[in-house]
């Protein structure tokens, strides 16, 4: 017989070791699809490493890719801590991006010191607003936020196409469904000359530090964790659970909205409907790899960004589909999930049947 028993003191070493092990295992498992595609896995890994760490440019590309993932990873991590399943970061990202170009691409011709903070605030606000609706439906009607946020992603994407063919369309854009460019003074300044990495990364890192501190040390963080661990007990202890949920919903949505701001006003300069290759969904993987810890989100985002940038570069060099990156990312999620089980329980072999 096999018996499963909870560990009495889940070790802290597991908390750090398991995500690292999951990352390694998922990369190792990538050898299977690589072999299936007829590529030499070792050469492929070499190309991936070169594609991420081979040059300053490669490193800058990786940090550029990690930036939106830190935002969406934080969005998921904070919400999941309160057991609020915000799967809508993808949509909220686009809401933030739409707000950014709505105000930033000429509607308001203000100096940068006014315009840039306004773009950031409005983008965050739009994302937050996008998460308030499903939270209201959850609290008021008991409508599962997983389903509503997922469906809202599709609604917002269609709304985006409508805006890009309508009010937000660039009049000089020859009819392409894209927005006018954000004014120069409204752009997040680049961090290095001739590189794409931009100051959105600094904002993301600062917010991760604040989130880490608030979650661990503040009353707000304590309430959030209490609501997530046992909502009924938290209510009994006098915590206003709904208020906590709305609060974390707003913050989570705002962080996802900032991912959109950062991509539009930091990287692309204008908005199209393919701004995000699923950053919202990948943020969930980032958050899970991070064990829902904001500091961990930064590390996990760097790892996932490396996988994407490395796989892109390997794909160009060897002709293996870059969907390999999505494969590695999804496998790392499943690995870390299983790892979480091994950290919490131990599997015992017992001689006699347990009744």
């Amino acid at each position, binding site marked *: 017989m096999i018996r499963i028993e909870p560990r009495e003191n889940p070790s802290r070493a597991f908390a750090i070791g398991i995500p690292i092990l999951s990352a390694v295992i998922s990369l190792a498992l990538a050898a299977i699809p690589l072999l299936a595609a007829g590529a030499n896995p070792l050469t492929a890994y070499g190309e991936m490493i070169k594609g991420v760490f081979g040059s300053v440019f490669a490193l800058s590309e990786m940090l550029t890719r990690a930036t939106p993932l830190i935002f969406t990873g934080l969005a998921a991590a904070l919400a999941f801590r309160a057991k609020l399943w915000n*799967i809508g970061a993808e949509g909220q990202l686009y809401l933030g991006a739409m707000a950014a170009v709505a105000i930033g691409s000429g509607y308001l011709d203000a100096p940068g010191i006014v315009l840039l903070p306004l773009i950031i605030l409005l983008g965050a606000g739009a994302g937050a607003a996008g998460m308030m609706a499903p939270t209201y439906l959850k609290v008021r009607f008991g409508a599962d936020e997983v389903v509503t946020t997922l469906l809202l992603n599709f609604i917002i994407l269609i709304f985006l196409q409508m805006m890009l063919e309508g009010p937000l369309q660039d009049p000089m854009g020859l009819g392409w469904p894209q927005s006018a460019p954000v004014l120069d003074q409204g752009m997040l300044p680049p961090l290095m000359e001739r590189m794409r990495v931009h100051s959105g990364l600094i904002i993301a890192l600062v917010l991760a530090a604040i989130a880490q501190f608030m979650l661990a040390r503040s009353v707000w963080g304590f309430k959030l964790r209490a609501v997530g661990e046992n909502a009924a007990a938290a209510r009994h202890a006098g915590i206003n659970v709904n208020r906590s949920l709305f609060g974390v919903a707003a913050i989570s949505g705002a962080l996802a909205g900032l991912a959109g701001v950062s991509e539009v006003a930091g990287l692309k300069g204008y908005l199209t409907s393919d701004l995000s290759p699923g950053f919202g969904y990948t943020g969930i993987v980032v958050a899970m790899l991070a064990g829902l810890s904001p500091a961990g989100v930064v590390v996990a985002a760097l790892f996932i960004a490396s996988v994407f940038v490395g796989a892109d570069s390997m794909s160009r060099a060897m002709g293996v589909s870059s969907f390999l990156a999505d494969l590695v990312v999804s496998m790392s999620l499943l690995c870390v999930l299983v790892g979480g089980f091994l950290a919490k329980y131990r599997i015992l072999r017992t001689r006699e049947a347990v009744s």
Partner: protein
Amino acid sequence: MMDLLNILLSESFWAASLRIATPLIFGVLGALICERAGVLNLGIEGIFVVGAMCGWMAVWLGAGLWGGALAAAAAGALFGLLHAVLTVPLGLSQHVSGLGITLFATSVSYFTYRTALPNVSSPPRIEPFQALDIPLLSDLPFLGPVLFQQTALTWLALLMVAVVWYIMNRTALGVAIQAVGDNPDSVDAQGLSVYGLRIGAIVAGSALMALGGAFLTMSAFDAFFFGMVNGRGWVCIALVIFASWRPGKALFGALLFGAFDALQVRLQTEMGALVPGQVFLMAPYILSIIALVIAARSADYPRALLTPWFKGQR
């Protein structure tokens, strides 16, 4: 107003509604079986993709249409088994595991498709299921075109409604599946295997979901595209709550959704000049949310849904 009436009375409208409803019927039934056994399966969106890709690819490789359907169901069952292992004996978060399955299944499908067909600009086509032209019945006024010119997979979906209803309501197995979703301890006390019932239900439900995906590439269209599932799986998760976990109401919900989707396409052509087309495209998703909100208050969730159960632990 006249136009609306004309649309609602036309044969082609109802034929289209049933066609659009077909993948949802498979999906809602699949989700219903999983949730009745106490496990939420958010892998559904990815399992749709796997079903669509495998079904299409098997036919493209020469397996025949039913071979394709079988391959799709088998692939869906396989991913279902993975979800089952993670959520039942290991008791891991059903939300996270399901989302993980969706990401994994989608990326496996896309990677396989891209690797098999590296340099195609237009996706290769297969000869899809044809309308079953049943002599005499197909010539019936109204019902003929609506019902008797659908493809075999639509008939299979309707048949599955009856089969699932029968199993759930008239067999010991169905009673056991429902009991395992409501009160696993009682099932265990009767000497039945909680793990076995739950795993079996998830595998079977996932196979049905994959058939919904297969319908897309083998009946509705004749090729595989990236992003073709487009949220249909998530719609099913909303519809199963709307259907209060009953097969008959699941059919009704899927048909209602199908009718609404067919209507928006027609209204779009009628009123396209007045309202941007996207307003109509959004409507089905908004409808799903509304259906969920209406049903959520009184929803009688399976009592042990989302709750893992471990042997020997009360």
